[in-house]
């Protein structure tokens, strides 16, 4: 019997005539032969769909509607749940670190791996520059095909953005560090504690950490290069818990730089749970 391929078309008949029994018989024979020809493909597909339909009570057309043309689920309702606290994936490390200079914050995303139920996806490192200091950011990337690699990391302060795209991977949240600004020192007391005077308003807060540098004499010998938590006295004065009574009198010079510490937030994950912040 000749192989049958291609689309089965209805028999051609003039519009004024009706299809005969013979026409129908020929049409159905062609259909049956087509199924036989493609038995190892289409019969398996039809059988599988029939099995799913019988098991779930969902008709075949509804099942097919849940898939895109490239076989991907239309949305997450078609996905299995990984039994790990309802989390769909987990990162091997928390990849987020933030730092700030005097004006802007930077979020660095380290290379990391996501563990899914089907396997792992590895992501390359990345950087986001020009952000605001002291701000909560949600970091994400779009990767609809689970390809991994070098993705574009973005940051938003708007939580719903994380689920605004079906292919969105939520990396995690992070509070960017406070800005790191430097004040010139114009005075220091040989006292306990040492009180420093800055040339301009420092804008700092008690418990901030500052690094001393370029201080003269005994102040420099003992304090340069070290960081200390400060107690703010007023806009141009602060003290550190160091006994300076033995120091020779301050002369001139010196800098104090507020330390901008990197702060890592809670991890995200491909399944995405948004920490409450």
């Amino acid at each position, binding site marked *: 019997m000749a192989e049958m391929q291609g689309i089965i078309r209805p028999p051609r008949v003039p519009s004024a005539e009706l299809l005969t029994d013979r026409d129908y018989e020929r049409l159905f024979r062609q259909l049956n032969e087509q199924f036989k020809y493609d038995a190892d493909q289409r019969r398996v597909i039809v059988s599988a769909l029939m099995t799913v339909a019988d098991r779930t009570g969902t008709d075949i057309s509804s099942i097919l509607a849940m898939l895109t043309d490239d076989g991907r689920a239309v949305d997450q309702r078609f996905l299995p749940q990984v039994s790990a606290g309802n989390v769909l994936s987990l990162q091997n490390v928390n990849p987020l670190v933030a730092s700030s200079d005097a*004006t*802007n914050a930077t979020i660095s995303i380290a290379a990391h791996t996501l563990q899914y139920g089907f396997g792992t996806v590895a992501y390359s490192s990345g*950087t986001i*520059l*020009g952000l605001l200091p002291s701000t909560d950011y949600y970091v994400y990337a779009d990767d609809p095909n689970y390809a991994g690699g070098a993705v574009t990391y973005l940051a938003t302060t708007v939580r719903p953005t994380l689920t605004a795209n079906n292919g969105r991977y939520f990396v995690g949240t992070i509070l960017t560090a406070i800005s790191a600004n430097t004040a010139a020192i114009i005075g220091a007391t040989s006292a306990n504690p040492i009180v420093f005077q800055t040339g301009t308003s420092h804008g700092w807060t008690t418990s901030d950490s500052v690094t001393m540098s370029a201080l003269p004499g005994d102040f420099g010998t003992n304090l340069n290069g070290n960081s200390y938590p400060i107690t703010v006295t007023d806009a141009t004065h602060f003290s550190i818990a160091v006994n300076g009574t033995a120091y020779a009198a301050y002369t001139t010079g010196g800098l104090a730089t507020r330390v901008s510490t990197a702060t890592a937030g809670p991890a995200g994950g491909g399944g995405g749970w948004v920490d409450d912040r």
Partner: protein
Amino acid sequence: MGGRPMIEVKTRRVMLETEHDNQKWLVFEGYVDGVPAVTKRTTIAVTALVQRPELLESAKTKLVADVAEYHANYLLLQSMGNI
């Protein structure tokens, strides 16, 4: 004459899906031809560039340096048979 051939780290702009995002973010990718494993992207907020235009060149310089470092590490691991 010995020595390792110079590896050229290239950069290109990556366009985002929407024009809105392209107005908001400038994304650059640093890469080495034929070695996708060392590719890295840097995202820069456009608002920061308006205030600090020098941020663009410094960011690109760092991106190139990072990719060059990744590539050197990649070659080392490859020579050790770990890749």
